[in-house]
């Protein structure tokens, strides 16, 4: 089953990490991802900029409305995602638990199965 693992956290704290804290956290998170990647189970991953960089398009009366900021004003915001291809939900939960353990912040991981998935063509 293909899952998206969506990471929610307080952005004020995450973006206040010093370079050293940031590097230490990222190194630990990469170490958790590495075996998944080696097993060919890890798809596209990404980290998002602060919500201040976000723009939201909503249905308007005639033309769609373009609004500054994220879709929802919530305490914890979507800051990143993983995509994984695993046999069972248990495996996705176990991976998320590993991520959670090495992440000192209060990040929550939402595990959502894909309905449709296209890996896309973007080269970075």
């Amino acid at each position, binding site marked *: 089953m293909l899952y998206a693992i969506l990471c929610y956290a*307080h952005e*004020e704290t995450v973006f*206040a990490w010093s370079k050293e*804290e940031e590097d230490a956290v990222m190194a630990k998170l990469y170490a958790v991802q590495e075996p998944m990647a080696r097993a060919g189970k890890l798809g596209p991953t990404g980290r998002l900029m602060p919500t201040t960089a976000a723009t939201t398009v909503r249905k308007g009366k005639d033309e769609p409305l*373009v609004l500054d*900021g994220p879709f929802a004003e919530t305490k914890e915001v979507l800051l990143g995602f993983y995509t994984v291809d695993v046999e069972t939900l248990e495996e996705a939960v176990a991976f998320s638990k590993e991520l959670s353990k090495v992440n000192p912040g209060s990040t929550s991981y939402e595990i959502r199965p894909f309905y449709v998935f296209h890996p896309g063509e973007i080269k970075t």
Partner: protein
Amino acid sequence: MTTDIAWIELALTAARPQALGALLRYFRDLDTAEEAFQEACLRAIRTWPDKGPPRDPAAWLIFVGRNSGIDAVRKRSKNDPLPEEEVLSDLSDAETDIADRLDNSNYRDDILRLMFICCHPDLPNTQQIALALRIVSGLSVPQIARAFLVSEAAMEQRITRAKARVAKAGVPFETPGAQERAERLGIVSSMIYLIFNEGYSSGITNPDNAAFCEEAIRLARLLLRIFPAEPEIMGLAALMLLQHSRAKARFDKDGQIILLEDQDRSLWNRALINEALALLDKAIRHRRPGPYQVQAAISALHARAATSKETDWREIDMLYGLLERIQPSPVVTLNRAVAVSKLEGPEKALELIAPLAEKLDGYFYFHGVRGGLLMQGGRNRQAREAFDRAIALANSPAECAHIRQQIDKLGAVASPVE
């Protein structure tokens, strides 16, 4: 569950402006609000590591701070005990609800008010910066004192005086109207940029001070979260992100200044640049240009050029022209002269800055830029005079050393004109 203490500190700092702002509105007295916030933080440090952080740290701190604050006021007469911590933490959901109901509608103006009271027009710039760093950012007095290179006692006194000045002026508690809110935003934006520049201009010479750049960016992001559709705040954030993206490239290992065109662009922080470009794109959609947006747009043209040779000087010249119209200042014209020299040569640029000589006579950069232009034009004797004048006006040893390097270059080339 255990929570990292460093994370708790980050969370407390992040929640500070909203929580302290709400407590200030509630108690209508800065000292009481600060005491209450401090008390709430101490409780957070005691309870969060075991119970885990609340989902909404600011709401938790407001709730606990308000209770402990009330208690501190009561204590003076009755000596009531504080509520048990266990009770507080178990009430996590209920307290969030209460605090949300009471404060969510107001928190935007709370944060703005907290920042705004630091910008009292009677306070000199350095005191505004010190007060904002103390009150809004929660930096300690020793930290601020180190950055300003004064003793802790002197800084303590400075901040106490500034606070007294603010208290005497009276804190504006009524909800501001649209016009007044816009004015406050403008004033607070300038204060944030002052904090940034305090860090930026001292650069490598004082690391305590350099942290101000990051603090200013944090405050700008905060302001943008509560006022998400203000293009000038997007511009301000973008401008600071772009300038800060070059932090690693601005000085060599000896602390000497490296000019933009000579910087190793691979040392520029691409993540910060990309965030700035995203913000600038958003700002431009509003079609309400302002000084921060234009300055950010100029800075972005440098960031977009893979090498200094590829810089779009024509566009930069045009943007400085726009800036001269919306915010006329001899310093803007001086900056424009650099673009003009790239496009039309040093003589044209010298013509442009000649009328500024009187106004900018006491300004380091004026003589530095003028010296550089004269040198390019081969007028070495005059260049030497301008550089001597710049050295006399230098604000830091790094600036001084940079001009000396220019003078050395002069010596190496025989003057073809004089």
